[in-house]
């Protein structure tokens, strides 16, 4: 009864095309945004910010990037970690070359580097499809991982082959480096993620999103409508890698504070892929839900036994979370291949008619 749309008539196509056409949705998103921008900084602990919220936001952005490529355009990619790494290292080098430029600008610029690399590794997509393309992205992943170790220029010849983040300020407040407070970093991450998600939503509901989905669903018919396959696929690679690159840069500069080459290896690619699968391929909301679930699960597993008075080693919790994530993936694919996002939609449908069953 709460979620009825009765009385909400759209009297123009514009109203129909809006991102949140239903009033309850509009109220909902406003509340969420208010809470995120105002409520959380006032109430959340440093631990929550550093270990839960910032990571989930950063990983959601990477998951959004991968979702655009794999969920919307149907191009399976196992190179996400590598593209994130390109963004991270690009940002690091940019701060070395341009120490006085605003860090947020640099983070966004590093996305373009990742986009360029992503486009190059997307070139084979003209000839190669499906699983085979996944192998091309694997080549990208392993090659980039190798580069991150073997090209000392990337990490400024640091002996330990890792990068340390310098302190950068915005309006006098430190935003990166050891002195930056979690709240500041959280707000910047939140803003960037919110902005880029809005852009993704715009792309997806317009012409570009439709061409991507057409290529995914039936590329032969898409060609016949006049869609140029190659351009569409390369654009998907470019945009997706941009998002992953920005996520990678934020991961290093606004979350971890440092990075090693191992941070962007094949396991990272798998991690993001699982987030997208469980969250829902082809759904922007799904990227967030999947990231929250996969990141949050080990945390909950580590905390839960203490809750019940049991004691479990963190390694065991880690392994248990592997088992559970694996089982969850299988479970979701059987029960709801479209992931958490579809479950959410179904939930809303039920809300429409609640308390009636149908």
């Amino acid at each position, binding site marked *: 009864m709460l979620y009825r749309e009765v009385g909400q008539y759209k009297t123009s196509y514009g109203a129909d095309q809006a991102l949140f056409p239903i009033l309850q949705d509009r109220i909902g998103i406003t509340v969420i945004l208010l809470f995120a921008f105002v409520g959380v900084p006032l109430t959340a602990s440093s631990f929550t910010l550093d270990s839960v919220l910032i990571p989930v936001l950063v990983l959601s952005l990477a998951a959004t990037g991968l979702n655009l490529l794999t969920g919307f355009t149907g191009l399976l990619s196992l190179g996400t970690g590598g593209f994130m790494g390109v963004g991270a290292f690009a940002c690091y080098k940019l701060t070395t070359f341009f120490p006085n430029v605003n860090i947020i600008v640099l983070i966004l610029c590093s996305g373009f580097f990742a986009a360029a690399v992503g486009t190059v590794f997307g070139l084979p997509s003209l000839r190669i499809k499906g699983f085979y393309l996944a192998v091309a992205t694997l080549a990208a992943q392993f090659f980039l991982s190798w580069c991150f170790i073997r090209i000392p220029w990337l990490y400024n010849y640091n002996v330990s082959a890792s990068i340390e983040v310098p302190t950068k300020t915005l309006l006098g407040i430190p935003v990166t480096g050891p002195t930056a407070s979690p709240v500041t970093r959280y707000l910047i991450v939140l803003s960037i993620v919110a902005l880029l998600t809005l852009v993704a939503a*715009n792309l997806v509901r317009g012409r570009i999103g439709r061409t991507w*989905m*057409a290529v995914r669903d039936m590329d032969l*018919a898409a060609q*016949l*409508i*006049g869609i140029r396959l190659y351009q569409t696929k390369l654009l998907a690679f470019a945009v997706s890698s941009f998002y992953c690159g920005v996520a990678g840069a934020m991961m290093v500069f606004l979350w971890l504070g440092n990075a090693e080459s191992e941070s962007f290896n094949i396991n990272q690619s798998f991690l993001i892929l699982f987030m997208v699968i469980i969250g829902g391929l082809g759904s922007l909301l799904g990227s967030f839900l999947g990231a929250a679930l996969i990141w949050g699960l080990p945390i909950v597993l580590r905390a839960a036994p203490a809750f019940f008075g049991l004691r479990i080693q963190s390694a065991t919790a880690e392994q248990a979370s592997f088992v559970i994530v694996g089982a969850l993936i299988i479970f979701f694919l059987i029960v709801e291949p479209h992931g958490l996002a579809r479950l959410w939609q179904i939930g809303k449908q039920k809300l429409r008619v609640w308390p009636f069953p149908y």
Partner: protein
Amino acid sequence: MGRSVGGPILEVEGISLSFGGVVALQAVSLDVREHEIRAIIGPNGAGKSSLLNVINGFYHPQKGSVSFKGRKRRRVDPHEVAQQGIARTFQNIALFRGMTALDNLMTGRTLKMKSNFLHQAVYWGAARREELEHRAKVEEIIDFLEIQHIRRTPVGQLPYGLQKRVELGRALAAEPDLLLLDEPMAGMNIEEKQDMCRFVLDVNDQFGTTIVLIEHDMSVVMDLSDRVAVLDYGRKIADGTPDEVRHHRAVIDAYLGVAH
């Protein structure tokens, strides 16, 4: 039969097409006049869909050429064909299953949308205006095909007859000069067929679209078409008005399976 027929808009000359050792088409020539409804019929495996695929640019013939609106070409890419103004429906429905009916139709208008990436990213402004403009045009087609109630339904969930209608809508959305329909009535019951016939006639009548139609149902073919071409074993064996073709010896033989 509706509008007055003009000069040839599509000319297929001497098309020969084979796959490995299998000959699909042999020296097939025919022409299609502007504003007419042209049927291509023949037993199964005669090469009718292959001919459409050649016109579309999916298959490249070993010999022969296709001229559309006076421009001759042997090899062409499918998206160029779309740009020239040819649209098509498929025998096994080729809708974008992950999208709604409305989105499928809107995708049909892709060629006409010009706003660039930046506009799309921002949405408010140029992209939104264009989106609404094309939405209005698409809604006209939705009204025309009476599919308002299924706009927002993912096409994978629609019954077969409605899917065929949505596919027709997607083809119409491109405002084509030439419309290729590959067995549009296949698998339909009497009512659905009557509706589809009505739509085909209306499209030809109201929009002036030239239509080439592959169809098995003889009564439909005889009623709708201005001229009919008959294919058998990859060769054209008859060409003319429905009456002429109906009484043609070779056509009767082909359908009855007489050895020839």
